[in-house]
């Protein structure tokens, strides 16, 4: 008999509940139970970072966390970045600076970048490269990704100077 556990997780600000097997990985819960397919599965061994989401404000690789561990916690996925039709500055940065080619790594990359910018508003290029070192991109060579994050850093500073709310949770 399969033992299921009841979990309640706040995902992108919405309360979600489900009965899940303890072995269900967080990434599968997001993609399959909640149909939030923005979070990608890449290597499945905690190397590539395609599945990066925020768990209580901290980035984690959702392929290496069980959904039951998120019980009572807050999860933010790439779907939670934009505010309605208004893109998050990091999304705008990837758009403006062409920070992607195939786009597979992009959701995880953006989550890592948002976490980096929350900790460090003025990252140097080296700090950006270190900050995204848990996320692999096989297309861009990272140059455009770094530019996208620099763009977002500037944009976030402007937003704050204008006293506007920063959208990231």
């Amino acid at each position: 008999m399969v033992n299921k556990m009841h979990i309640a997780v706040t995902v992108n600000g919405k309360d979600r509940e489900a009965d899940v097997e303890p072995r269900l990985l967080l990434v599968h819960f997001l993609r399959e139970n909640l149909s939030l397919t923005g979070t990608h599965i890449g290597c499945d061994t905690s190397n590539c970072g395609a599945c990066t989401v925020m768990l209580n404000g901290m980035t984690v690789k959702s392929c290496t966390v069980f959904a039951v561990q998120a019980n009572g916690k807050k999860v933010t996925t790439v779907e939670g970045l934009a505010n309605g039709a208004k893109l998050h500055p990091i999304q705008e940065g990837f758009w403006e600076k062409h920070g992607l080619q195939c786009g597979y790594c992009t959701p995880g990359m953006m989550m890592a970048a948002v976490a980096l910018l929350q900790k460090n508003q003025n990252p140097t290029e080296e700090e950006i490269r270190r900050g995204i070192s848990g996320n692999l991109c096989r297309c861009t060579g990272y140059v455009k990704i770094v530019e996208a994050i620099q763009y977002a850093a500037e944009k976030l500073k402007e937003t704050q100077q204008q006293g506007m709310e920063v959208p990231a949770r």
Partner: protein
Amino acid sequence: MNELTHKQSQCILVSLRLEPVRGLHMIPASFEYSSPKTLSEAISLLETSGSDSKILAGGQSLIPVMKLRLGSPSRLIDINNIEGLNYIRESDGFLRIGALTRIVDLESSELLKKKYPIINDAASHIADPTVRNLGTAGGNVSHADPANDLPAAMLALSAEFVATSSGGSRVIKAKDFFVDAFTTALKHEEILTEIRIPQFTVGNGGAYLKLEKRVGDFAIAGVAAQISVTQGVTVAKAGIGLTAVGSSAIEAVEAEQYLIGQTLTAEAISTASKLAARASNPGTDLRGPGEYKREMIIVLTTRALKRAYLRATGGAA
């Protein structure tokens, strides 16, 4: 999992270093899950569940092991919701690190940067920033992967591990803790609760150096060196730990003993580095031939000792 034979351990070792086998399930086998709120509850769960139950801390090694079906524990006891196991502080003559302290906290701790930078060095070399958010100090040492970075630093620091069970606590010295690949001196019914390190005063310095193929990878080889220097010249105490060059983290005892009473001349450093390499027993694998790794232990020990000396005598680095 605790009763793995040496051969099984080696199998895990090899497998984790390789890419996942094509077609292999990446879903763990079913297990029971508990999330106790207190340490005593966790210990009693450990005592009453089968011998193949496991503690889930950061899960950054355990979950991949389960996904690759190299281990299928019947129960996971998640200790992440137990309060009071995440701290870094000095008290009663020891630097104390709670077992559930995240690697990211070791990496960013000002106390460690200032007084125990060897730990900071090692922490910042573990996997990548996202993995370090969840990975824990206690998990890194008790998983006892010979390629993990903290065990060598713990050997160099003469760390002690506090193991807690329903009968109370006992202290295990680092040199007795790392028994073999993925095997520690912890008993099944014990939980590692604290890592403690004799508190340092002036004249102490340490460094950890790791050679890796790419950022975030396991070490090709790594060396941790910690020395205490009297009057700015003579070595009074030395600790040297080696990563990924044997079936467990290795303490280079001969090199340590040789260094005591020495002035750190280029010659003394060279002799100590060769002795350290003699303590290693690296195998040939994807990360390079054993011979090469042994040579690298010489290079890394030399550099680590120089950096440790600079730090011990108030220099930068």
